[in-house]
């Protein structure tokens, strides 16, 4: 059940195929068949809540395979079920099953992203403008969480650099800070004080401009499910997952290294750079190895973690001359 991109002889798995369309269609027929009864009303309610949960449920998002170097790993993508039900998105709760359960409350339309700071053309983008700003590409990236697990996700989006060029950063801009949604009405997690809300993340400008840094709108052939950061997020594949801010509402170009949520919370454990680095251990998770989610069952051996999550060829040059044990 794989679609082939014969143009380049490469065979990337197309995620929307993970739940076969026929299976999905059958479920639909069944739902429609039952619609109308009282029992049905309750079932429909449940169906609506589980929406983010199945491939084939969300709006498709067309994309061409990316030509960016390193953007198309041949590794087997994680199942859609695992990628959407094992998430860290603390705004919806700290348990990894919380986002799948509660993220449906978040409203992703209307949505704007305010881009400002040290730029010549500050602008507030409507999400529909952002969707049209540059051609959509599919990119299959490894995702390495600081908790020592990893996935392979087929994202859809375009290089963040396309957006950066539109707003024209000034010469003094050295960093970009991302601010994500913190809505007390729909996000129970922001009532707690586990982190400072809104969640902020940041990149050095050259990191943000690197072609692998993705502004993502979709995954698995469809728009992003809420729990994975709808409607727009960044994905920085050579850094630990928490660097890839979800559900972004604001970007600011600044001169000084901006505060980032986990760095503020625990400075010694989460550095500003947080590049995937097997040589810098975290006090709770060895970073030398990782568990690939969904791989070969319970007794699969852990994989060796690679420097820069395997993207060293593309990004190591950004850090030439830096002591990465000091700037972890």
């Amino acid at each position, binding site marked *: 059940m794989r679609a082939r991109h014969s143009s380049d002889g490469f065979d990337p798995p197309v995620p929307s195929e993970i739940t076969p369309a026929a299976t999905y269609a059958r479920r639909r027929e069944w739902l429609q068949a039952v619609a109308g009864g009282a029992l049905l009303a309750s079932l429909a309610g449940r169906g609506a809540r589980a929406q983010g949960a199945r491939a084939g449920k969300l709006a498709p998002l067309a994309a061409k395979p990316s030509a960016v170097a390193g953007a198309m790993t041949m590794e087997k993508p994680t199942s859609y079920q695992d990628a959407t*039900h*094992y998430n860290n998105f603390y705004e919806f709760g*700290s348990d*990894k099953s919380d986002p799948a359960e509660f993220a449906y409350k978040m409203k992703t339309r209307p949505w704007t992203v305010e881009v400002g700071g040290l730029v010549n053309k500050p602008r507030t983008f409507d999400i529909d403008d952002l969707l049209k700003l540059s051609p959509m590409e599919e990119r299959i990236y490894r995702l390495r969480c600081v908790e020592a697990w990893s996935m392979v996700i087929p994202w859809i989006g375009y290089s963040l650099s396309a957006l950066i060029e539109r707003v024209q950063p000034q010469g003094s801009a050295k960093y970009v800070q991302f601010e994500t949604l913190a809505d007390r009405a729909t996000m129970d997690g922001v009532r707690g004080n586990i982190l400072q809300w809104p969640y902020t993340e940041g990149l050095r400008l050259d990191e943000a401009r690197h072609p692998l840094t993705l502004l993502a709108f979709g995954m698995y052939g469809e728009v992003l499910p809420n729990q994975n950061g709808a409607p727009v997020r960044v994905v920085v594949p050579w850094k630990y997952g928490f660097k890839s801010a979800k559900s972004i509402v604001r970007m600011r170009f600044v001169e000084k290294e901006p505060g980032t949520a986990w760095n503020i919370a625990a400075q010694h*454990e989460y550095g500003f750079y947080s590049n995937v680095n097997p040589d810098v251990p*975290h*006090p709770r998770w*060895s970073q030398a190895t990782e568990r690939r989610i969904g791989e070969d069952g319970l*007794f699969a051996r*852990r994989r060796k973690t690679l420097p820069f999550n395997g993207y060293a060829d593309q990004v190591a040059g950004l850090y030439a001359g830096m002591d990465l044990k000091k700037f972890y």
Partner: protein
Amino acid sequence: MAAPAAHGRWLLHRAAKPVLFALCLLPLCWLVLGAATGGLGANPAERLIRSTGDWTLRLLCLTLAVTPLRKLLALPQLARFRRMLGLFTFAYAVLHLLCYAGFDMGLDAADIAHDIAQRPFILVGMSTFALLLVLAVTSFQPLLRWLGGRRWQRVHRLVYLAACLALLHFFWMRAGKRDFAEVLLYGTIVAALLLARVLLWLRAAPGAQGRRFLRKT
């Protein structure tokens, strides 16, 4: 000791111990079933490691609750369940350790040694396990007789240290994600159980020691 309270006679029923034994096995059955049917979510290894740890802590709380409850409810019959609960605590600790060693470390002794040296919360977990091992080994009648009641009791007071270390281990693990709600819950339970012991001891010891303590405070 007073004659067993009449309202606790059911605790002496022949089936009471087998029922408790079966109840203590339920979490394990549930985990094995989940592992066999793919019901443990996206990261079954992590789920097994964490769940066995959770159950160790829960059973440790239950074990610590026996004595205060026995005294507060005047149910001396409860004492006959204490060893079984303690040994189940140890059994889940063994499973916890095996899951960690197997799933996280690939049963590689050198990796485990390195991990203990590198991560303080692993060191604390291992220390807790060593204490529980001492308690489990000395929990049988012949060893109790060999040690003598008073010395045995002194050894078994190590359970308080084990509980504190288990909490530290849990706290340290959760500190990574700054998620302390559950740590606080278990911490409160253990603190309440230890406080209950102190209060019972003060009430039961009206002798010189207890009065001196009361006057000072």
